[in-house]
């Protein structure tokens, strides 16, 4: 698979220092993560592929259970060997992670790739001080004396915007506010200067004003360091803020993968349309109701045949029985815009223009219009 060139960028990006610009830093190909259970095989991720270059940020979007977090855990090597069956390929900086020695992956974890978790209160150990947890993260990969690690962690806390970091370093997580905790979490993730940062719902537990600050922080840090970032969220609003590219997942598969601009202004998959419809927007009339996607996410044990979205798709019947029998391939619909849908390009454009876009109030709008 050649790396699609997506150079749509709202801001300048730092060029990768030591790799060719077109060699993706993270390559995921044919990734499957299956969990055998008493009820059957849970196919959480099923044949996922995407690429991510340094200096770029990828938003992975989908409902809960779509496989976003499972994917990120698979990249981090955090699935338990006994409980998950992982196949396919995950290459980090050219190094294969699937099937690699756990010890090898561990050494990469926290150093080369780091992760920020959803709820910073439960994600930080309640019995250890914030500083201690950052120091620990630093020292596990860097053989430095404790005092040096401490200075480093105070520095990090300062950089993520914690006031008086020298004294707050000895606070416990519960003594921090929600936003501060997330900042501390980020500081911890950044302690070893990772080249890949995965943020799993980094703002979900935070209130709106803090959300914006945290997203700004992630963006700024990425800019500063030129690392690759994956933001996992169910909230398109969040990715709109940070991501260069967006991967939409449904039932363990990628259904659409394109630049943020393409996703927002020329979305091609009916599921993406549904997501956009359920997104609150400041520029939309308040009178217009949010349009939730009808139906419920599918069972990952008995995934619907054909296109797994078909039971919920209002356009599934437009291809005869193709949607219920054939699994749609992720194909380039032009401009490196990948989509997995049986609708033909023409049909899709027509539906979007005539039916969906007006419903979303997005006719004739161009980028830059959003707050």
């Amino acid at each position: 698979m050649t790396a699609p060139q997506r150079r749509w960028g709202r801001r300048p990006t730092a060029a990768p220092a030591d790799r060719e610009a077109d060699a993706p830093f993270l390559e995921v190909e044919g990734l499957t993560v299956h969990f055998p259970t008493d009820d059957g095989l849970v196919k959480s991720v099923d044949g996922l592929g995407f690429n991510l270059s340094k200096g770029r940020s990828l938003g992975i979007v989908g409902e809960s259970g779509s496989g976003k977090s499972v994917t990120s855990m698979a990249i981090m090597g955090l699935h338990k060997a006994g409980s998950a069956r992982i196949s396919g390929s995950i290459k980090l900086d050219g190094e294969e992670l699937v099937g690699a020695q756990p010890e090898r992956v561990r050494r990469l974890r926290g150093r080369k790739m780091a992760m920020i978790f959803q709820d910073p209160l439960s994600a930080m150990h309640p019995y250890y001080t914030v500083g201690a947890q950052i120091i620990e993260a630093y020292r596990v990969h860097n053989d430095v004396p404790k005092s040096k690690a401490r200075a480093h962690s105070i520095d990090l806390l300062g950089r993520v915007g914690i006031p008086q970091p020298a004294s707050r370093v000895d606070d416990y997580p519960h003594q921090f506010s929600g936003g501060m905790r997330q900042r501390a979490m980020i500081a911890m993730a950044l302690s070893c200067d990772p080249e890949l940062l995965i943020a799993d719902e980094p703002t979900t537990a935070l209130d709106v004003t803090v959300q914006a600050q945290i997203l700004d922080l992630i963006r700024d840090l990425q800019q500063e360091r030129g690392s690759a970032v994956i933001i996992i969220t169910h909230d398109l609003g969040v990715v709109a803020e940070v991501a260069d590219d967006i991967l939409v997942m449904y039932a363990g598969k990628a259904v659409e993968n394109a630049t943020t601009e393409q996703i927002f202004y020329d979305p091609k998959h009916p599921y993406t349309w549904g997501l956009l419809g359920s997104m609150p927007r400041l520029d939309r009339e308040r009178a217009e109701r949010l349009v939730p996607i009808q139906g419920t996410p599918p069972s990952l044990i008995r995934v619907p045949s054909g296109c797994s979205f078909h039971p919920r798709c209002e356009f599934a019947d437009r291809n005869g029985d193709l949607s219920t029998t054939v699994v749609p391939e992720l194909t380039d619909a032009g401009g490196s815009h990948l989509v997995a849908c049986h609708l033909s390009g023409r049909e899709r454009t027509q539906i979007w223009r005539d039916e969906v876009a007006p419903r979303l109030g997005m006719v004739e709008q161009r980028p830059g219009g959003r707050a």
Partner: protein
Amino acid sequence: MAGGSPMGPARHREPSQVIAFIIRRLLAAVLLLLVVGFVTFIIFFWVPKLAGQNSYALASQFVGKDATQATVRAIEKKYGFDKPVIVQYWRFMKNLVTGTKYDAGPVKTTCNFPCFGVSFKSQTPVWPLIKDRIPVTMSLAIGAAVIWLVSGVIAGVISAVKRGKFIDRAVMAVALAGVSAPIFFTGLVALSLFSYKWPLFPNIHYVSILDNPFLWFGNLVLPWVTLALLYGALYARLMRAGMLETLNEDYIRTARAKGLPERTVIAKHAVRAALTPILTIFGLDLGLLVGGAILTEYTFSLPGVGQFAKQAIDNNDLPEIFGVTLVAAFFVIMANLVVDILYAVIDPRVRLS
């Protein structure tokens, strides 16, 4: 297990706050002891009364077998059974604090604070009798506690980490057996195997650690192991459950995501958190045991507080029952207090109030 990291207690807790907490708790403890003492009295006096026993019949339990009526009356008066229960209770509580003197014939018996009275049977003050036995029970309880805590926690951790594997099943099977088997059974089995059949520990009898530490140790190994088997099994199960719960916590995932070796994740992050509830139970169990490990002491003939309690009840000796009940209650209350303080030290989120 904090592994030398800078993970001290919270700095935001004032010492005065801790002292106030302790004082408050001690006052509550005094109140609780008053209640415990009163309930002991109620049980001793009123329950037999409901069954139709009068103070004369009560007194007749404490005289020789061919005592005359006058003798029984004299005993009844001497022990104050003829007084209303509330008066007797008041007298006991007053003497407890102020101490008193008892008539022992030509001499007086001095009963100093804490004066639980003078044993009906031995006619000596109760507190020295109990005090004398506390080291025995302490030796038993603390030794066993170390064994069961260490073994139970290790077994629980291994079991949780190797969940579903053979070793997990094996440990849990042993634990189930350990929890199910009563001490007088395991104790007798241990005795008959390791003291009688293969005399690794022959002639088990208590020797003070001050007299001979080696004998002290050797004689306590079987009682420790027996007692620890029961509790250790319980703790293994608790620890396993706690570990399984903790291992699902987000912060464990975080620890792994940091790239910590699994050993560190388990030992430093998971065990520490899973240990906290165990510690609470541990404190209470230890407090209860110091108040008398009756079955173990009986089985191994250790002259501890538990044996004393059994004799006190066998002899229906009110001052002894009263004393041992209050002492046991005191230990439990103290253990509770220590656990609470310790809890606050371990878990920085806990505030002493």
